C-alpha cells in the first residue's frame, strides 16, 4: 500500500469516528490530556475504586460537566456521578472547557467538600428571636416565598421600588439577575465591586470604554502584572496556565508586588515598590519611551483623542500631531527614573532595565492590574490608567500577545426575554451624588449613607455576599442590619453560614456549583466562550430516564437554585401580571405559563450562541443537550482588533460625521445574538446613533468611549470635577510616607492565598488544611525594631479605629517598612448561633456605646460529625478578622475603597488572644466623614445637571429622566 493510500485510510477512519462524536486521538499525555476519559465514554466511565485497593473493584460513573463557582474564573468541572448511588464522588477538570482546558486549582476539586459539608444549610430558615440572637425555625419555601413576595409587591404598589435591594458578591452568572431587577423596575443592584476591582476598572474604563483587561499572556513577549491577587485568585487558573505558556515561549515576566507572591517567584523582574508608587513607575517608563521615541507614533496618531485634548486643554484646535508630541513629552518629562526611584524605593537603573524590556515588547505587551495596588490606594485607579498608557503607546491593545478589552473576549448570549423597562427611581444610597464618577455602587458606605439619608430598605437580599465580614467597618454593618428602622426584611441567600446571615430574617439555602444553572463567560484569552453550570444530579437522573421539573428534586435537603427561585418569586410578586413584571418570566413557547429553566437555556443555546446548533447537529443532539454533555462552547477564537474593523455598508445610512470624526447613522441596530450591555453613547442632535469613527478617511468601529478613540484625556473626568486627573497621572496615596507618622507602617490586606476564596471556602476541609490562618507578614528588620522576637509571637496591629491581635510571621518576603495580612481568614460565629464549625471560631461580641469588641471563646479544632475527617482537624488557629478594624476609605473619583491601612505594630498585651478585635465605630464614622469631604459632588460639579455621566457603565440603568439631579438634599444625622 502506498503512503497516499495509507493516509487516506487513516483519514477515513478518523472521519468515521469523529462523525459519531467520538474522539479519534484521545491525545498523548505529553501533548494533550490523555489522563481525561475520552468524552464518548463519559456516560459510562469505569474506574477502579481506590479505597478497595488491593482488590480490583470497579466503580461506574456518569461524568457530567458543570462550571466551578468558587471564584470568578468559571473553570470547567466534571462531576463523577456514581451510577449506583447517584451521588457525586469527586470533581475533576473538564478538558472540553476552552478557558480552563481541563486544568483546575485546588478550589475546583474541593467542591466535593462543600456539597458534603456536614454543617451546610439544607432547609429554609426563619428568624425566631430578635435579629442576631441565633434562634431559627425551619419554614417551607412556600411560606418564605409568599412572605417575601408580598412585601415586595406592597413596596411596588406604593412606588417604593428603591426600597428593594439585591446585594451580590460573586455574580457567577451572566446578567440573569440584573435583567430581572430591571424588569422589576428596581434600581437595587448592589455589587461588591467597590471593595474589589473598581479601582482597576475605572482606569481601564476611562481609556477604552470597557472596564476589564484581557491580556493575551500566552502570545506575549513581555507580561507586566500589578497583582498578586489576579494570579493567585481572580482568573488564577486560566491566566496562570497561559502565563506559564508565555514564559515557556520566551516571554519576560515583570511583577510589581510589595510581597514575594506566588506570581513574583516566577518573575524575571520582581519589583517590590513602596505601596502606591506604582503609577510613578509606569509614568517614568512612559516618559522614557516618549523621550527616546520608543513608541508607535502611527498608532498614537490614529487612535488617541489627542486632537480633543489639544483643543480642550491647550486651546489649540488646529494643533498638529507633532505639536501634540511636543506637549506630551513636556508633560511627562518630570517623571524620571530618579523620581520613580525616590517614590518607590527601587533602584533607578533597575527601572531603566524594566523600561527597556517593556519597550522591546512592541505590540506583544500583555499587562494586567486587578485589585492589588489598584484597590489599595487613594488614586489607585491611576495604576490601571498609567499601565494602559504603556500599551497605548506601543499599540499593544487588541493585538496578538497584547491586552484586549474584556468585552471583545467574552460572549454573553441574548436571553429569550429582555426587560423593556428601566427603573424610574434613582437609588441614592447606592449611587450617591457625592460620587458621580463612582464606577460601581458605593456599597460599602451603605451604613453611613443610610444614616445620612435616613433611608430604609424594605427587602434586602444578600446573595453570595457577606458584607459584615468582607467589607471594611463591619461593626457598622452589624448595627445597620440589627436596626429594623433601616432594614425591613433581610433575606440571606447562601449555601453556607456566614457572618451576615446571622443577622438575617430568612436564610435560604442555595446550591453550590453542581447544584444550579447559570451561564458564564469571561475574558481569559483572545477568544469567546460560553460556559454552562448545571445541577449535575438533575442532569444525570434525567439522562437515566427520570422526569425532574425542579432542581430541588435532585439537590440535597431543600437546597434550591436561584434561577428557579427568582422565577417563582417574580410570579408570586405579580401573580396576575398587573405589575407588568411577570411577563419577563413567561414561557415563550407556552404564552401565559411560567418559564422553566429548561426552556430558558434551550432557547438561548438554540438562538443566541453562533455555531452551537451546527456543532450539536453534527453530533446528532440538540444544542441544550450538547451543553449538558460538554459544559462549554467556544464561539470565536482570535477576535483581533475590533476597533479597526470597517463599519459595514448596511449600517451606514444617512451618515453624519462630526468635526471630531465620530460617525453617526440612521441605520437601525443590526440584530445580535449577544445580550445588550456596555456604555451608552448619546446619539447626535438629530437622533442618529453612533456607529464608528472616521480614521484617515475610513469609517471603522472605534472604541466605545465618548470620543470613539482611546481617551488619553478624559473629558468626563475633567468636566465632572477632576480636570487635574484627566490624563494618566500620579496621585500620592493616603499611605504615602509624607502622610504617615514616624511609627506607622502601611498594612497591605489586598491579597490571599490561592486555595481560599473570600467567605465561601471555610467549609472545604481540604482547603482549610492547606491554609487556615493569616499571620502578619513582617520583615526581620521591622520585627526587631518593634520588639517581635520570633515567628508565632502575638502582636497588636493598631489602626485608625481599633486594633486586632494575631501571630507574626517574620519573613524577608515583604518589603521593609510594610506589613501585610491576607484577607481570607478569621471567620467567626457568635456564641449561641448555629453555623459551620470548620474554619470558624466562636466569638463573644461585646458593645459599650460606640466601642465594639470581638473575642474568641472557642478556636478551631476537631469536632464530631457524620464526616470522620472532622475529628482529624489538627489546627486550631483560624486567623483574625482584620477588616473589622478598617474604616471606609472611598476614593473620591472612582469610589473604590482604598484598602491599605496606616498601622502601628507592637507586641501584644498579656491578656490579648489571637483573634481579638476592638473597634470604635464613632471613629469609623469620623473617618468616613473625613474622606467624604474629599468628594466632589454632582451638585457642584455636574456639567449638565445630571447625577452621573450617562455613557458610563451601570449594571442596571434607570430611565434617562432619573439621571436628572433633584433638589439639593439636606443631609441628616451628620
Amino acid at each position, binding site marked *: *500500500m*502506498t*503512503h*497516499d493510500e*495509507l*493516509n*487516506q*485510510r*487513516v*483519514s*477515513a*477512519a*478518523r472521519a468515521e*469516528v469523529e462523525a459519531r462524536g467520538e*474522539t*479519534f*486521538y*484521545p491525545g*498523548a*499525555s*505529553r*501533548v494533550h490530556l*490523555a489522563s481525561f476519559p*475520552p468524552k464518548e465514554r463519559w456516560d459510562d466511565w469505569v474506574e477502579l475504586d481506590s479505597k478497595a485497593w488491593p482488590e480490583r473493584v470497579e466503580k461506574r460513573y456518569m461524568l457530567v460537566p458543570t462550571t466551578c463557582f468558587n471564584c470568578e474564573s468559571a473553570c470547567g468541572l466534571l462531576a463523577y456521578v456514581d451510577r449506583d448511588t447517584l451521588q457525586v464522588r469527586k470533581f475533576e477538570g473538564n478538558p472540553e472547557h476552552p478557558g480552563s482546558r481541563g486544568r483546575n486549582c485546588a478550589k475546583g476539586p474541593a467542591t466535593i467538600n462543600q456539597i458534603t459539608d456536614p454543617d451546610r444549610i439544607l432547609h429554609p430558615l426563619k428568624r425566631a428571636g430578635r435579629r442576631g440572637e441565633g434562634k431559627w425555625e425551619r419554614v417551607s419555601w412556600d411560606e418564605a416565598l409568599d412572605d417575601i413576595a408580598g412585601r415586595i409587591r406592597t413596596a411596588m404598589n406604593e412606588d417604593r421600588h428603591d426600597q428593594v435591594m439585591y446585594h451580590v458578591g460573586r455574580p457567577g452568572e451572566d446578567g440573569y439577575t440584573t435583567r430581572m431587577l430591571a424588569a422589576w423596575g428596581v434600581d437595587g443592584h448592589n455589587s461588591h465591586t467597590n471593595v474589589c476591582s473598581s479601582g482597576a476598572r475605572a482606569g481601564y474604563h476611562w481609556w477604552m470604554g470597557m472596564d476589564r483587561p484581557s491580556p493575551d499572556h*500566552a502570545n506575549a513577549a513581555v507580561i507586566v502584572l500589578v497583582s498578586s491577587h489576579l494570579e493567585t485568585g481572580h482568573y488564577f487558573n486560566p491566566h496562570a496556565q497561559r502565563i506559564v*505558556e508565555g514564559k*515557556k*515561549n*520566551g516571554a519576560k515576566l515583570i511583577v510589581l508586588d510589595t510581597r514575594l507572591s506566588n506570581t513574583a517567584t516566577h518573575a524575571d523582574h520582581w519589583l517590590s515598590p513602596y505601596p502606591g508608587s506604582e503609577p510613578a513607575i509606569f509614568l517614568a517608563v512612559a516618559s522614557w519611551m516618549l523621550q527616546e521615541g520608543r513608541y508607535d507614533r502611527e498608532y498614537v496618531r490614529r487612535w488617541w483623542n489627542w486632537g480633543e485634548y489639544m483643543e480642550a486643554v491647550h486651546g489649540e484646535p488646529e494643533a498638529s500631531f507633532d505639536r501634540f508630541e511636543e506637549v506630551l513629552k513636556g508633560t511627562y518629562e518630570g517623571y524620571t527614573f530618579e523620581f520613580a526611584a525616590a517614590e518607590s524605593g527601587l533602584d533607578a537603573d533597575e527601572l531603566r532595565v524594566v523600561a527597556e524590556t517593556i519597550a522591546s515588547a512592541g505590540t506583544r505587551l500583555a499587562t494586567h492590574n486587578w485589585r492589588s495596588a489598584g484597590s489599595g490606594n487613594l488614586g489607585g485607579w491611576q495604576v490601571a490608567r498609567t499601565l494602559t498608557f504603556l500599551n497605548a503607546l506601543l499599540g499593544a491593545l487588541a493585538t496578538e500577545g497584547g491586552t484586549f478589552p474584556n468585552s471583545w473576549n467574552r460572549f454573553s448570549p441574548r436571553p429569550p426575554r429582555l426587560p423593556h423597562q428601566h427603573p424610574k427611581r434613582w437609588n441614592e444610597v447606592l449611587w450617591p451624588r457625592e460620587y458621580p464618577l463612582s464606577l460601581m455602587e458605593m456599597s460599602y458606605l451603605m451604613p453611613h449613607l443610610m444614616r445620612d439619608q435616613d433611608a430604609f430598605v424594605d427587602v434586602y437580599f444578600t446573595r453570595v455576599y457577606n458584607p459584615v465580614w468582607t467589607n471594611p467597618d463591619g461593626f457598622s454593618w452589624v448595627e445597620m442590619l440589627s436596626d429594623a428602622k433601616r432594614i425591613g426584611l433581610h433575606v440571606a441567600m447562601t449555601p453556607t453560614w456566614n457572618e451576615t446571615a446571622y443577622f438575617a430574617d430568612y436564610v435560604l439555602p442555595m446550591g453550590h456549583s453542581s447544584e444550579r444553572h447559570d451561564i458564564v463567560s469571561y475574558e481569559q484569552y483572545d477568544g469567546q466562550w460560553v460556559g454552562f453550570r448545571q445541577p449535575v444530579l438533575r442532569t444525570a437522573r434525567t439522562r437515566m430516564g427520570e422526569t425532574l421539573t425542579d432542581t430541588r428534586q435532585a439537590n440535597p435537603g431543600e437546597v434550591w437554585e436561584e434561577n428557579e427561585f427568582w422565577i417563582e418569586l417574580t410570579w408570586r410578586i405579580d401573580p396576575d401580571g398587573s405589575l407588568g413584571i411577570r411577563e419577563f418570566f413567561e414561557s415563550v413557547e407556552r404564552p401565559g405559563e411560567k418559564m422553566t429553566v429548561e426552556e430558558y437555556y434551550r432557547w438561548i443555546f438554540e438562538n443566541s450562541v453562533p455555531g452551537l446548533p451546527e456543532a450539536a447537529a453534527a453530533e446528532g443532539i440538540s444544542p441544550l443537550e450538547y451543553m449538558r454533555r460538554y459544559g462549554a462552547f467556544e464561539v470565536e477564537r482570535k477576535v483581533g482588533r475590533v476597533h479597526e474593523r470597517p463599519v459595514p455598508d448596511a449600517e451606514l445610512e444617512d451618515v453624519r460625521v462630526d468635526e471630531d470624526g465620530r460617525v453617526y447613522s440612521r441605520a437601525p441596530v443590526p440584530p445580535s445574538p449577544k445580550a445588550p450591555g456596555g456604555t451608552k453613547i448619546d446619539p447626535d442632535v438629530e437622533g442618529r446613533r453612533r456607529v464608528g469613527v472616521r480614521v484617515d478617511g475610513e469609517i471603522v468601529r472605534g472604541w466605545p468611549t465618548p470620543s470613539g478613540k482611546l481617551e488619553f484625556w478624559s473629558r468626563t473626568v475633567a468636566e465632572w470635577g477632576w480636570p487635574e486627573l484627566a490624563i494618566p497621572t500620579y496621585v500620592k496615596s493616603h499611605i504615602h510616607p509624607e502622610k504617615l507618622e514616624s511609627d506607622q507602617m502601611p498594612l497591605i490586606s489586598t491579597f490571599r492565598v490561592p486555595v481560599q476564596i473570600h467567605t465561601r471556602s471555610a467549609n472545604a476541609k481540604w482547603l482549610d488544611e492547606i491554609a487556615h490562618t493569616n499571620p502578619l507578614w513582617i520583615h526581620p528588620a521591622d520585627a526587631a525594631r518593634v520588639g517581635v522576637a520570633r515567628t508565632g509571637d502575638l502582636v497588636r496591629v493598631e489602626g485608625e479605629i481599633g486594633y486586632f491581635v494575631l501571630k507574626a510571621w517574620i519573613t524577608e518576603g515583604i518589603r521593609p517598612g510594610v506589613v501585610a495580612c491576607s484577607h481570607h481568614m478569621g471567620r467567626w460565629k457568635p456564641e449561641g448561633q448555629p453555623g459551620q464549625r470548620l474554619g470558624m471560631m466562636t466569638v463573644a461580641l461585646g458593645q459599650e456605646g460606640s466601642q465594639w469588641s470581638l473575642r474568641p471563646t472557642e478556636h478551631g479544632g476537631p469536632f464530631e460529625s457524620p464526616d470522620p475527617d472532622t475529628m482529624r482537624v489538627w489546627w486550631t488557629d483560624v486567623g483574625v478578622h482584620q477588616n473589622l478594624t478598617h474604616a471606609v476609605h472611598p476614593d473620591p473619583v472612582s469610589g473604590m475603597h482604598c484598602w491599605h491601612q496606616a498601622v502601628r505594630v507592637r507586641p501584644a498585651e498579656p491578656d490579648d488572644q489571637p483573634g481579638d478585635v476592638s473597634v470604635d465605630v464613632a471613629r469609623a464614622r469620623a473617618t468616613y466623614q473625613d474622606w467624604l469631604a474629599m468628594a466632589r459632588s454632582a451638585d457642584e460639579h455636574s456639567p449638565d445637571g445630571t447625577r452621573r455621566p450617562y455613557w458610563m457603565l451601570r449594571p442596571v440603568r434607570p430611565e434617562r429622566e432619573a439621571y436628572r439631579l433633584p433638589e439639593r438634599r439636606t443631609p441628616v444625622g451628620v
Partner: protein
Amino acid sequence: MSDPVTPPEAGELLRALAHLAEPPGPAHPTLAEALGLPAPPDAATHTDLFGFQLYPYASVYLGSEGMIGGEAEERISGFWRAVGREVPPEPDHLASLMGLYAALGEEEAELAAEPGAEARVTLVARSRRALLEEHLAPWVFAFLERIEELGGTFHARWAEMLRGCLLHELARGGAIASRPVHLEVAPPLPDPRDEGAAPFMTALLAPVRSGVILTRADLARIARALELGLRAGERRYALKHLMGQAAPDVLAALAEEAERQADLHAARSAPIGAPASFLEARARGTAELLRTLAGAARASELAESDGTAGETTPATLESRGS
C-alpha cells in the same frame, strides 16, 4: 512505497504512526486496522519495549549523557520555540516530534494556499526540513531498525512502516549534506585507561558518543552467550557486573556488536547522508577501542596468571572507577 506525498495528507499518516508510540489506548486498534498492521499488543509489551529497551526520546540518542532530558532536550525545546509553538511537556518524545513535523506540514500547505505568503511557506518548509535533518534523522532510523530487531511483530511492522515513511520524507530533499552541529560537539568515547571506567561506561551507553545503541536485551544476549550472570538493574549496573565476571569476553562481544551497528550505519549513509556517516565512524572507533581493551584485558589476565601484573585494564578499573 511510492510517489511523493504532499502535505498535509502526509500528516495524517505520520500522526497515526506517532500515536502508536503512545501507551495503548482506545484509538490503537482502529489505527492499526487502518494501517494494515497486526492487532496492537498489550500495555505490558509496550512498556517493555519503550520503557526498558528503546526509549523513544531524542535526548537519549543525541545527548552526551545518553539519558532523557538535559541539554539535548533543551535544544529541542528551543526548536519548538523558534517555530512559534508551545513547548509540550516532553518536547523530544518521538510522538511529539512527529506531531510537530506533521503540524508544520499542515501549516505549510495552508500557507501555500494564501496569496503572497511565499516567504512564509519557504520559512515553514525549511523549519520542517531542519526538524527532520537535525532532530530526527540523526537517531530515529537507527532507533527504528533496533525496534525492528527487538520488537514483536506489531512493533517491527510499525517501525518498518514509520522508517519507510520518514525515508520517503527525507528523500524529498535528498541525503543530508552536513552534520548537525550538536553531533560535532558531542565528545567521543574516552579511553578508560586515561579517564577511568565510569566516564567510559557512560559514554558507551550514550549513542551519540559511541555510535552504538546498547539495550538491556543486548546485554542479556551477551550474558547468555558467555554464560555469565546478568544482574537485574539499570544498564550501567548490569554492564559493570558483566565486566567484573569476564572483562575480555564481554569487551570482545561489545566490539562485535559495535562493528555490526557500524555496518548498519554504513548501509544507511546513502539515503541519510552525513549523520549516518558520523555515527558509523563513531561505532567503528568504539569497536576498535573495545577490541584493544579486550586484548589488553586478556594480556593482563595472562600476566596475572604468570604473576607479572600488567597495565591497568577495564576489569581493574571497574572497581576504581565506580
